[in-house]
Every structure is written in structure tokens, then in C-alpha cells.
């Protein structure tokens, strides 16, 4: 199971006992307005998919063939597939090893190491890349792509794996050992299989980021579908070649979702029996293993935190007070905060009806509604933005180039982040309290508002925080959709690095990291809480 805070597209955090409750009363008790709202949000989520299909149909088969089946698309496909196939196993290996070291051994300072393994999430991926190109200028291509991706994204695996390791029942391992298995065999045959869900979820998250990221790969000159779509956009605005690449990319994302859901399997992971699992046993490492473990933690930390912070510090010192151009920085900061807060509020509110339905009246219809949102959020920002630009320019001109469209893009991209946290929050609000409010004459909507939502507020806040974090570091959709004359920290950073003015870009990067830090702390805290410790 993935910690609830992670926007893992496909986790199912609803406890089984809540799920069995009355299905027949869906419409009668859910209230038509809740259903109406969730259908509306889900239909909105389908917009980008409908756009991708619509454009492909409209373009005509022969054009599709010439634009899709050409050597360049083959090159991009090879690049993207290699990137995914190399990065994900490395992230899994690194994430699982680090998690095992911090959770199941007596490695000195393991609490600190655990915090340090989460911290790289506070550094936006394109800032990692910026640090590496300024440290090692010739770095480029597949090797660089894999290196920087592993460094930027391994915490997505570390967090769920560490949380699961903390919760495993040691009794199963005892049984395996009593049957004569060696410790290493116990790890591979008993522990690792139990980590399957965490690994699958984390790997999916890393994979989707690999497909969607633009800034990281643009800066180290590694061409993926996303960078190629961006190049086409810069040459043609929204020409057919960009649309076709976007369609292929969307197919890649769907393939990845399908692969993950097949890899999850149907095995049971909950423990059987009464009482609770006993405390984990801690493995005492030998001196040589301790040294190796410390070296691995140290090197990871150096690469994932040391490199970005040192280069950033260097540029800040080199730039001096000159680079702190407040007339540019303050509006960018203000804009980022406004987009972040506005987007987080809108997304959280939009998630309420769906989250509430999924807890109170789970069923087939609700699952369909929910999966619409998951599929869209797995699409790269560039695809969503391209869809919104095209749709608003032709059919919704009043909201074209307005903040509304930007917030809508954020809503479509980040809804599951709010949904997962909010759902956990609502699940913990007893339905009986809501029922009592109803019996005292409150309307369903009012009861939901007065009772359940107030109890679910911490969950909603966590979800909103995650959305805010995502918006702070969002680059591609913001670049395409931002209203005239607006600039966020991310797009400001990007404008500076595009002119190779690395010193002037440093303050933007620093501000983004500072904004992300408390929220990364929250993520860390939540993953600890999931384990009940």
C-alpha cells in the first residue's frame, strides 16, 4: 500500500468494511447535486482525452500515418523507452535498499538518513538538472537523463517502501527462517513480495514523471516525447505534428497505467489472526556492512542534495546582490502563491463530491468517475495544456489566456492528489454523526458541510498542500497557459536558464525550494503516520 499522501494514481485506500455498505441507495441518499458535481468534474477530466482522440480523427488517417510513422518518432520512442527501462529498476533498487537500511537495520543515524532520503523532493526536477549542467557542463544524453532522473525521483519509491517495511508482520519472516531459509533468501522470498504494491505504485509514479518532465531533459539535451512536443509547439503553436506526438505520448501513459495494474496482482497482503503485529526486529549490521550502508546513504545524499545546494550556493555567491532583482522576483513569488493557493483551493473543493461518494456510496459508477480523473492526471502537463489552449481558443474564448484556464489545468492534473488525502479524511468521519445531523433536520448537503467536511479538514489540508507543492514547481502547462504579462517562479527560472544566465536563475530556484520544504516535511510526517508510529 502506498502512503495516502502520495498521488499514486490507483491506490484503493477504502477499508473493506466501509465498502460493503448499502449500494442501492446511491441516488436517493447521495443527493442529485453531489452526483451532478462529481459527474461534471469527471467530464471535465475527460476533456484532454477527448481532445487527443478528436484531433486524431480530424487530422485524417494519411496525415496521421506520415506524422506518426516516421524515423523521428521512432528515435523519440527509443529514447523514452530506454529512459523508463533504465531509470525505474535503478530507482527501485536504490529506494528499496535505502528503505531497508533506515527501517530494518541499526545503521547509525537512520532517522536522519530517512529524512534526507525524502528531502530531494523539495528540489524541482529541473533544478536538479540545472545543478548538474553547471557542475559538469558536457553532461548530456541518455546517461545524464538516467542519472538525474534517479536522483530526482527515487524518493517516490523510498517513501512507500519504507512505510510498508515498517508495517510488515515479522511473524511471517520468523516462519520462513524456522523452515531453514537464510536471511538473504528470506528477504527475496518473503519481504520483497510483500513490498509489491508499494514498488508498483512508486514505479508508476516515477514512470509518469519520466514521461511528463520537460525542463530536466531539455536542459541536459536528451530528447523525449515531451521535449519534442515542446519544440513543435514553439515552431507551430498547435500544429498537427505536435498533436500527433501528444497522442503517442498519451498512449504511452495509458500503457504504463495498464502495465502497473497488471503487475499489482491480486494477492492478499493483510495479516490473518487476532491482535497486532509485534515490533519489527532490527538487523544488527556488521562493521563492513555498516560502512557500506553509510557510504551508500552518504553518496546518495551528496548527489541528490549536495550537488543542487552547492551549485545553487555557488551561483548565489557569484551573482551577489545583483541577482536579487526584487522588481522581478516579488511579482513572480506573488503569482506563484496566488496560482498555488487558488489552484489548491479549487482542486480540493472539486474533489469533495467524488471523495464523499467513494466513501459513503462506493459502487461501479463512482469507480468509473474516479478513474476518469486518474487517467487524465497521468497525462503530461504539455498534453493537457495543448488541449486546453486549442479548446479555449476555438470554443471558450472568454476564458482563453485567463487565470481560470490555468487553474482548470491544475485541477485536471492534480485532482487525484487532493482526492486521495480527502478520501482518507472522510473515511475517518463516522457516518453516524452525519446521519444524526440528518435526523435533526439538516439537509444532506448541510450535514456533509457541517459534520463530515469539518472532521475531514486535516485530510483536505494535506491534499491541498500536495496540490500547492505540485503547482509551485509546475512549468510546462504554466508556460503555455499563463495570462499575458504573468510570470511564476518556475517560468522565471526557465526564462533565465534559457539565456544561460545561471546566476540570475539561482534566486528563483532557491525560492521554489524554500516554498517546497515545509510541504516535503509534511509528506515525510504523513508517511510515518501511515505506519502508525
Amino acid at each position: 500500500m502506498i502512503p495516502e499522501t502520495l498521488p499514486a494514481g490507483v491506490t484503493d485506500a477504502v477499508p473493506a468494511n466501509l465498502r460493503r455498505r448499502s449500494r442501492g441507495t446511491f441516488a436517493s441518499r447521495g443527493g442529485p447535486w453531489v452526483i451532478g458535481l462529481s459527474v461534471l468534474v469527471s467530464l471535465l477530466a475527460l476533456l484532454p482525452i477527448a481532445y487527443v482522440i478528436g484531433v486524431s480523427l480530424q487530422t485524417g488517417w494519411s496525415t496521421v500515418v506520415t506524422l506518426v510513422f516516421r524515423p523521428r518518432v521512432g528515435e523519440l520512442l527509443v529514447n523514452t523507452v530506454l529512459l523508463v527501462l533504465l531509470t525505474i529498476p535503478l530507482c527501485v533498487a536504490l529506494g528499496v535498499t535505502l528503505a531497508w537500511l533506515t527501517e530494518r537495520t541499526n545503521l547509525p543515524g537512520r532517522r536522519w538518513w530517512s529524512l534526507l532520503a525524502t528531502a530531494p523532493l523539495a528540489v524541482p526536477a529541473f533544478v536538479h538538472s540545472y545543478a548538474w549542467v553547471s557542475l559538469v557542463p558536457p553532461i548530456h544524453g541518455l546517461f545524464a537523463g538516467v542519472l538525474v532522473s534517479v536522483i530526482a525521483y527515487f524518493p517516490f519509491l523510498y517513501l512507500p517502501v519504507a512505510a510498508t517495511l515498517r508495517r510488515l508482520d515479522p511473524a511471517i519472516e520468523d516462519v520462513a527462517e524456522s523452515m531453514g531459509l537464510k536471511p538473504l533468501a528470506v528477504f527475496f522470498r518473503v519481504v520483497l513480495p510483500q513490498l509489491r504494491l508499494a514498488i508498483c505504485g512508486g514505479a508508476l509514479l516515477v514512470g509518469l514523471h519520466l514521461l511528463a518532465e520537460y525542463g530536466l531533459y531539455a536542459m541536459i539535451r536528451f530528447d523525449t516525447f515531451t521535449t519534442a512536443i515542446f519544440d513543435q509547439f514553439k515552431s507551430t503553436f498547435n500544429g498537427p505534428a505536435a498533436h500527433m506526438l501528444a497522442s503517442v505520448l498519451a498512449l504511452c501513459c495509458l500503457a504504463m497505467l495498464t502495465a502497473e495494474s497488471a503487475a499489482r496482482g491480486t494477492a492478499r497482503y493483510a495479516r490473518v489472526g487476532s491482535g497486532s503485529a509485534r515490533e519489527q526486529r532490527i538487523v544488527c549490521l556488521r562493521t563492513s556492512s555498516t560502512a557500506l550502508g553509510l557510504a551508500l546513504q552518504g553518496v546518495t545524499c551528496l548527489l541528490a542534495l549536495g550537488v543542487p545546494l552547492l551549485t545553487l550556493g555557488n551561483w548565489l555567491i557569484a551573482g551577489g546582490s545583483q541577482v536579487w532583482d526584487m522588481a522581478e522576483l516579488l511579482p513572480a513569488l506573488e503569482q506563484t502563491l496566488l496560482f498555488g493557493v487558488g489552484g489548491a483551493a479549487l482542486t480540493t473543493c472539486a474533489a469533495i463530491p467524488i471523495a464523499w461518494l467513494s466513501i459513503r456510496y462506493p459502487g461501479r459508477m463512482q469507480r468509473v468517475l474516479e478513474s476518469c480523473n486518474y487517467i487524465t492526471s497521468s497525462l503530461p502537463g504539455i498534453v493537457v495544456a495543448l488541449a486546453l489552449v486549442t479548446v479555449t481558443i476555438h470554443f471558450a474564448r472568454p476564458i482563453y489566456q485567463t487565470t481560470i484556464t490555468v487553474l482548470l489545468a491544475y485541477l485536471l492534473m492534480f485532482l487525484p492528489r487532493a482526492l486521495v488525502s480527502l478520501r482518507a479524511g472522510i473515511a475517518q468521519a463516522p457516518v453516524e454523526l452525519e446521519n444524526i445531523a440528518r435526523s435533526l433536520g439538516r439537509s444532506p448537503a448541510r450535514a456533509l458541510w457541517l459534520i463530515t467536511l469539518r472532521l475531514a479538514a486535516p485530510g483536505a489540508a494535506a491534499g491541498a498542500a500536495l496540490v500547492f507543492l505540485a503547482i509551485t514547481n509546475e512549468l510546462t502547462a504554466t508556460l503555455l497557459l499563463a495570462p499575458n504579462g504573468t510570470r511564476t517562479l518556475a517560468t522565471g527560472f526557465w526564462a533565465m536558464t534559457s539565456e544561460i544566465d545561471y546566476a540570475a536563475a539561482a534566486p528563483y530556484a532557491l525560492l521554489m525550494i524554500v516554498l517546497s520544504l515545509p510541504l516535503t516535511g509534511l509528506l515525510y510526517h504523513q508517511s510515518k503516520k501511515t505506519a502508525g508510529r
Partner: protein
Amino acid sequence: MIFRVPSFLKKALLASALVSAGHVYAADSVGIVVYNAQHESLTKAWVEGFTQETGIPVTLRNGDDTEMGNQIVQEGADSPADVFLTENSPAMVLVDNAGLFAPVDKATLEQVDAAYRPAHGKWIGIAARSTVFVYNPSKLPNADLPKSIMDLAAPAWKGRWGASPGGADFQAIVAAMLEQKGEAATLEWLKAMKTNFTAYRGNSSVLKAVNAGQIDSGVIYHYYSFVDQAKTGENSKNTALHYFKHKDPGAFVSISGGGVLASSKHKEQAQAFLKWITGQDGQAILKDGKSFEYAVGKNAQSNSKLMPLQQLDAPTVDASKLDSKKAVELMTQAGLL
């Protein structure tokens, strides 16, 4: 009934309401919107001077030439843009072919030399830049320098030169080659380029790579090197510039264009802006500022560090015929995009 909302939610809702309100308010402002594909720093200097003198506020939307050209075409009659500024001509041609430009004021046209504006007067040159071959002398001795940009298609140049095919600059060079050499020869050259060259993102990155010795040479515009020299020189100190001259396609001088949109609701202010940047003060910013682009105003001087425009022996290309769409199509066909 007491209807309490969690306070964080209240604040968030209030903030988002303010965002939207702020936007609606901004849309009604009196200033002009400039779709700017020129270097942001240059346009900012122009805007500062213009606003200081006239009091007319200017909002910038920054992007790339053909991106914004296509965007304006799709926006059509409802485009929020009042003025369009580019780095190269093809995007101006794109918008002009869609019939979206209002004629430039006569007085403004007369400020610029006839060679740097199309005869029909729908848009005007605001600055110019020259194609240049940048090389690292320690990697590429002077004797080995190519005579023509067309030579770079030869197998001997495999792995020895770089360019930024995704940028409007290089695409303008291709459009000029298309105009001079025709479609077949251009496509053949582009296919050879795909085999021979290394792709970078942005001319600055090409310059930086040549300077660091990662690649022997590159095709860029002239001013990147001068801009870097004026700063610290750290990305250009190991490089030298070679101008092809002799009316070679590689000696192409690209005209940066400016035009007023026919759909503009602030035409008077928009025309004033165009007049200002092509006038004495605007062109002086090209000479004295940090852009190192060529001035195109009558009697306007370019920066004295630059090789004079007249000595570049550029090919005569009708800027109003440059076809960006075809250029991008050919580049897509050659697998460069």
C-alpha cells in the same frame, strides 16, 4: 443557521476569488499588449523608454516567433495582441498572409531604410541579425573553414558542427535557403544536416559548447558572441566568428519585424510604440544597449564592435516571401523536429 467554513478554506476561496477578480480588472487596462518574440531584455529596454516618454503602459507576452505567429493567426479577430515583435521575418509573413496586420503609419515606414522592410508596408524591420559560423580555432584551423554553409552537408563535416533546429533563428536561415536554393536542394541539405550535426537547445548553448570544445563549430547569429563578450566572455573566449559573405545562403541577414494587429483596440498607442522603437531613441538602444543587434533606422548607427552591415555581402532575399511553414515542414520531414 450557522454556516461555518474551515478558516483555511475561507482564506483559500478568498484568494482564488481575488486572483480572478485581479485578472478581469487587468484586462480592462488602457495599455497595449505586445506579443514579444524578441529577446526579452531588448524589448524590456524599449518598453521602459517608451513608457517613460509616453506614459502608455505595455504588457508583454513572451514566446517564440512562429509559436506566436501561429497563435495570432488562430486567435484571429479576437487576438488580445496589439503589437507583434519577432526576431525573424518568417513569422511576420505568416501573420501578414492571414491578413491580420494593419498598415504601418507612413511616418514610421520612412524612418527605416527600404531594404529592411517589405514594400507593401504591412510590417516593418525593427532590427537585424546576421548568420555566422562560430568555431573553436584550437579544434578547427582557419584553413579548414567552410566556404559556404552548403559545404556543411559534406561527409567531412560529420560530427563537427552544431545548431539549434528548434529555434526560430535557424528556421529563418532554412527559410532563406529555401527561397534561394529551392525545395529539393534544401531538403537534401537538411537530411545531410541530420546526419552531420549535433542538436542544441538555443544558440547560447551552441556557443557554449563550441567554447568548451565539445563541438568544433556551429551555425548561429552574430550577436550571441558579442553579448557574452560584453559580460564575462566565459562562454565565448575560445571562439572566433567566420562570416560566409559572397551572397551565400549562410550570409543571410535576418530582419526582425514589428507590426500592429488589425484587430487592435488601441491602434493609436500601438502605432506610437512601433514608431518609437524604429525611431531615433529606439534604434539608439540597439547601438548603446547590450543586445548587439544591428540597427535598421535611416542614419542609425549599430554598435561599433560589429562588422558593418554593408560589409556582410548578404544575399538579397525578399523578406516577405520567407515561408516558415514550408521550412518547418521540411525540417520535420528530415527528422530534425
